[in-house]
């Protein structure tokens, strides 16, 4: 291969880092059995590429070159530590003995799956699972993740350090769990993916990054060759749900950054490709008859996606899907959504009485969206002063941080309209 100009090469290496670092890291973790060592070896391997490739040109096979460089770098690290710490010598010897085993393509994909299960291990606190998955599997930097979750890099760095310490101290293995515990552990992984996605739902610029990564993770879970164990309908359901929600991103906010609710969105801005893929996945999951809450939510999103307007939406079907969702995942928030669907199907009065019952049960009394939904129904019934009071209640309960700013502006706008 012809030698490339140095600036081309550093761009190629940067792109390669984006697309390959997750795979390379995962394989090095399996080979070295140590996340920190694997990470260091991976960084050194990329540094070595930056130094060597301008002279030698691009190697034929980039990924194997980097994995092999990473192994040699790891041995260097072990040798250095061994000089001062005898305990390290065993591992270095074992590593050197295995240096000539070249990992197979399929194995590399399995490695990524192993790493996801480790990062989403239930022994780690949820915020640690999310941070670790984004950094180790998706290859985001500490600073990028911190920006997306609106915390300081130092806070996020510590979450990662603590999560890694738990993996080390509890000797959590790097492996896909055995069949017996697979479905429970898969549930934890799906929850992390959905948490990442939801964190990306509301904020525009940084949010798009998180949603993209969550969808990538969903595809990874679905597409890993040899991961037939994971052909769980809920994996399809979750990916379908995320694609259907994401299809509306361009329509959710005005050019000025104002929040636009479903009934007022310009549906021509919805992403048709994402809708088609999301609906196909959802139908597949539904056909399995073993689906769960993600698939049901995807089915609800699919009905919205297929409707040409809020009025022509099949609200009866949506109400029935919410009934099933409440049976398998009872939650006051699901009940609230069902009440809104009933308001569309049977009329605002029916919806309002359901919401008032829910608010009386107090679980949702502090939830700003419950008051804002109530306000909307009052508004539609012409009970304007009551509507305004409920919007004001919602505003007083909405969190005052940057992420909730569009919601707060939306509520203020509605209050202004009702004055």
């Amino acid at each position, binding site marked *: 291969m012809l030698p490339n100009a140095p600036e081309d090469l550093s761009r190629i290496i940067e792109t390669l880092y984006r697309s390959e670092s997750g795979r390379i890291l995962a394989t090095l973790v399996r080979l070295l059995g140590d996340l920190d060592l694997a990470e260091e070896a991976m960084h050194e391997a990329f540094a070595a590429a930056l*130094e060597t490739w301008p002279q030698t040109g691009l190697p034929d096979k980039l990924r194997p070159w980097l994995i092999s460089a990473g192994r040699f770098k790891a041995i260097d690290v072990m040798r*250095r530590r061994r000089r001062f710490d005898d305990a390290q010598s065993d591992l270095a010897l074992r590593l050197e003995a295995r240096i000539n085993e070249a990992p197979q393509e399929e194995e590399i994909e399995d490695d990524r799956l192993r790493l996801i299960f480790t990062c989403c291990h239930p022994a780690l606190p949820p915020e640690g699972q999310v941070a670790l998955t984004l950094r180790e599997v998706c290859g985001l930097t500490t*600073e990028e993740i911190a920006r997306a979750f609106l915390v300081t890099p130092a806070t996020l*760095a510590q979450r990662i350090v603590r999560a890694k310490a738990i993996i080390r101290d509890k000797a959590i293995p790097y492996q896909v769990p055995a069949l017996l515990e697979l479905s429970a552990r898969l549930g934890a992984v799906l929850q992390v993916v959905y948490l990442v996605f939801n964190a990306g739902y509301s904020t525009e610029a940084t949010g798009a990054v998180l949603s993209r990564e969550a969808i990538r993770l969903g595809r990874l879970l679905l597409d890993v060759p040899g991961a037939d164990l994971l052909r769980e309908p809920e994996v399809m359901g979750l990916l379908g749900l995320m694609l259907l929600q994401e299809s509306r991103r361009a329509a959710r906010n005005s050019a000025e950054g104002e929040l636009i609710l479903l009934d007022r969105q310009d549906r021509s801005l919805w992403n048709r490709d994402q809708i088609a893929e999301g609906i196909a996945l959802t139908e597949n999951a539904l056909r399995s008859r073993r689906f769960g809450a993600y698939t049901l939510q995807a089915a609800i999103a699919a009905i919205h996606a297929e409707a040409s307007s809020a009025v022509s939406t099949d609200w009866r079907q949506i109400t029935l899907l919410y009934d099933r969702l409440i049976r398998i995942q009872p939650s006051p928030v699901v009940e609230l959504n069902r009440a809104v669907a009933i308001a569309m199907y049977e009329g605002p009065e029916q919806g309002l009485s359901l919401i008032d019952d829910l608010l009386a049960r107090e679980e949702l009394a502090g939830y700003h969206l419950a008051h804002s939904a109530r306000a909307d129904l009052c508004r539609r019934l012409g009970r304007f002063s009551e509507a305004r009071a409920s919007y004001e209640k919602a505003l007083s309960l909405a969190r005052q941080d940057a992420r909730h700013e569009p919601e707060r502006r939306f509520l203020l706008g509605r209050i202004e309209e009702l004055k």
Partner: protein
Amino acid sequence: MKYICLGYYEPAKHAGMTEDERNAMFDECFEYDDHLRANGHWAGGEALQPSETALTLYWKNGKVATTDGPYTETKEQLGGILVLEARDMNHAIQLMAQHPAVKYGSIFEIRPSGDLNEMMKASQERRRKLTAR
């Protein structure tokens, strides 16, 4: 990205070491510094002479004042600074966690380097307007 690592140590502890112990510590630390250099992580660094050699400069009653010694008196003294090239904060933590100085009781404060380019540009703009007037 650059991370500045401020290394603090306890002078009393170092004074209590034998010469062999001190040499072993230096050898380990310098060897690790070489490793950082070899892998492109070393973006600079300087050791500091003891805090007695410091002079502190500040503003007092409308003029510049100076005093002998460091600005704050603590048991730990700033012993040196290291500028690290790392991919992100956790990479910096990982590299410094292996620094042998930590094992010998040094404390590192790690801070991302600040980007003053925007501030400097804005300041240049203000000064240009001032002279143009």
